[in-house]
């Protein structure tokens, strides 16, 4: 593993308020090489968005406790001052969100919202910023770009809004692009267009991308590597082929079996019994930390309750956080 763009070690994020503490991320390690696409796959509440925001330190500062090591292009995100973070955000790292309607400011034009980023980071003049904004709209294939510069978000369709959002994120040629379910709110016909666009831009610009999704199909279209997240931890990590075809962790296997796809008609869908654990500190303090999936796992036994299994690298780059892991061919 070459961790030359992103290096994350033992990342933990907690949200602390007067009456409760949420342990949203509980120890995440990974590396990302330049030009690589990592998909973080998991169900809602597993900590995907929090992990992503932690890479830019965008979680609400007042309530967030962040521990561990996060380095992006050699810069220490955990220790950096707010000033340094403001320099990094939008230039070195930038982010695309799930809902382009709410993620864009409704009372500023698309042109202004692209322009302010380049004016901020590259000190361009208004006219130069406008020119760059135009180029960017062309880059993300927005037709009649000139007219769209003056448009407000509500005047664009969902697909165009997300393209505009991508244009903003790419405006200062970031080395790392973070995408938080950028196609979830879109129709399948538009989703595939956005995925292809992101893949093309990623290759052309040589960016590293961390792409969060709950959709295995989306991960299959765009990922080089997949990390499966469950209850605040990565439970499996490997190349897209390894994870999709030879999933090792019982949770990943369950997820693959539960995802409806071609040729499942008439069969019974695999389901995972139970529900993910609550990540709040219960009144009696945190219980002993064990395999978070054990309560729902068919393979679980007493050994599973002896601490958290390591993300085991016995199979090279394909690792799973399970002491009973077996390579299982899951047909897709």
């Amino acid at each position, binding site marked *: 593993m070459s961790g030359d763009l992103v290096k994350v070690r033992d990342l933990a994020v907690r949200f602390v308020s007067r009456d409760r503490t949420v342990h949203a991320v509980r120890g995440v390690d990974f590396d990302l090489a330049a030009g690589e696409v990592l998909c973080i796959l998991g169900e809602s509440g597993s900590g995907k968005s929090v992990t992503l925001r932690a890479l830019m330190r*965008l979680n609400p500062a007042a309530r967030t406790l962040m521990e561990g090591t996060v380095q992006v292009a050699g810069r220490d995100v955990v220790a950096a001052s707010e000033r340094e973070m403001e320099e990094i*955000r939008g230039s070195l790292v*930038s982010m695309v*969100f799930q809902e382009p309607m709410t993620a864009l*400011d409704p009372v500023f034009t698309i042109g202004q919202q692209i322009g302010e980023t380049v004016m901020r980071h590259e000190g361009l003049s208004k006219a130069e910023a406008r020119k760059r904004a135009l180029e960017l709209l062309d880059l993300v294939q927005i037709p009649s770009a000139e007219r769209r510069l003056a448009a407000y978000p509500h005047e664009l369709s969902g697909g165009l809004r997300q393209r505009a959002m991508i244009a903003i994120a790419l405006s200062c040629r970031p080395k790392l692009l973070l995408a938080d379910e950028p196609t979830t709110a879109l129709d399948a016909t538009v989703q595939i267009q956005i995925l292809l666009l992101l893949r093309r831009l990623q290759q052309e610009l040589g960016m590293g991308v961390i792409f969060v999704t709950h959709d295995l199909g989306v991960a299959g279209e765009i990922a080089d590597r997949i990390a499966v997240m469950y209850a605040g931890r990565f439970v499996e990590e490997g190349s897209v082929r390894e994870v999709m075809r030879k999933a090792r962790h019982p949770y990943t296997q369950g997820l693959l079996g539960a995802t409806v796809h071609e040729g499942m008609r008439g069969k019974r869908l695999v389901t995972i019994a139970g529900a993910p654990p609550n990540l709040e500190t219960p009144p009696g303090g945190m219980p002993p930390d064990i395999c978070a999936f054990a309560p729902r796992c068919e393979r679980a036994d007493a050994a599973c309750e002896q601490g958290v299994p390591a993300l085991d690298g016995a199979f090279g780059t394909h690792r799973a956080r399970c002491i009973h892991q077996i390579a299982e061919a899951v047909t897709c």
Partner: protein
Amino acid sequence: MLITILRRILYALPIALAVSLFCFALVHIAPGDPINAILPPDAPADVVDAVRKTYGLDKPLPVQFGIWLWKVLQGDLGKSLATGRDIWPDLSGALQNTLTLALAAAMIGFPIGIVLGSLAGAFRGTWIDRACVGTAVAGVSVPHYWLGMVMVVIFSVTLNWLPSMGASQDGSGGWSLDWEHLQHLVLPAITLSVIPMGIVTRTLRGIIGEILGQDFITTLRGKGLRRPGVVVHVIKNAAPQALSVMGLQLGYLMGGSILVETVFAWPGTGLLLNNAIFQRDIPVLQSTILVLAMFFVALNLAVDMAQSLIDPRMRRA
């Protein structure tokens, strides 16, 4: 954009017409013959007829309304029953005084409200929030006249720093920007400003809090914008709602200062209205209400236009 503005004006016209119709009807819905409002009940019949003619009261109502409206548009509001003088000169003087007082109160109350509200919204749940909200609640709940009297007792009677009555020393109607006039303005303006201050604080707290919780704020931070850059966005998003509250409050300040004007003997429309009511001076009452209501309509129109200027989503309908 021009079309939007024209359309707003078009929408405001029927409202203005309805308001003037109401003011016109004031005289006629008052019990009895409107002539009784003008003449003593025991006036001889030929006098009644003559007056009826001069006031046009023998014509059908719609025609009367038309004539009345036409005169009003030319600034002819008729004569006061109590003084027999033309209404307009007196009313315009009073209006100027009320406007002066209202604007002064707004210039005190709105900025304080904006600052307190923004602080409370930005620091929700902290002691800053609680302090700002506490001030706002106090401002809204303290009775006007009580606060006015307390201020008079402290600053006029005890300390003898500021005058307690009228708009100027000599009681002349005019107003100009000098200390002689300003010192008369201080106490009533402060008294009048506390309620709008409280209301603006509370509203802005809500607006700012909501805006700061929205997704696009995360986007802006994610773009690396510094605090001033983000603030520009917050202001533009908050402005439409904030403007509408302040417009409404300014309207209340114009119409709602009766008590304060009475306490401080401020020669404004409030005082005028007060006297008109006690003297059953229906024409003055009618004219004052009409002018104040028109002011309200115009204010709303201005706020509406400012809002659609700022928020593109409001430009359609």
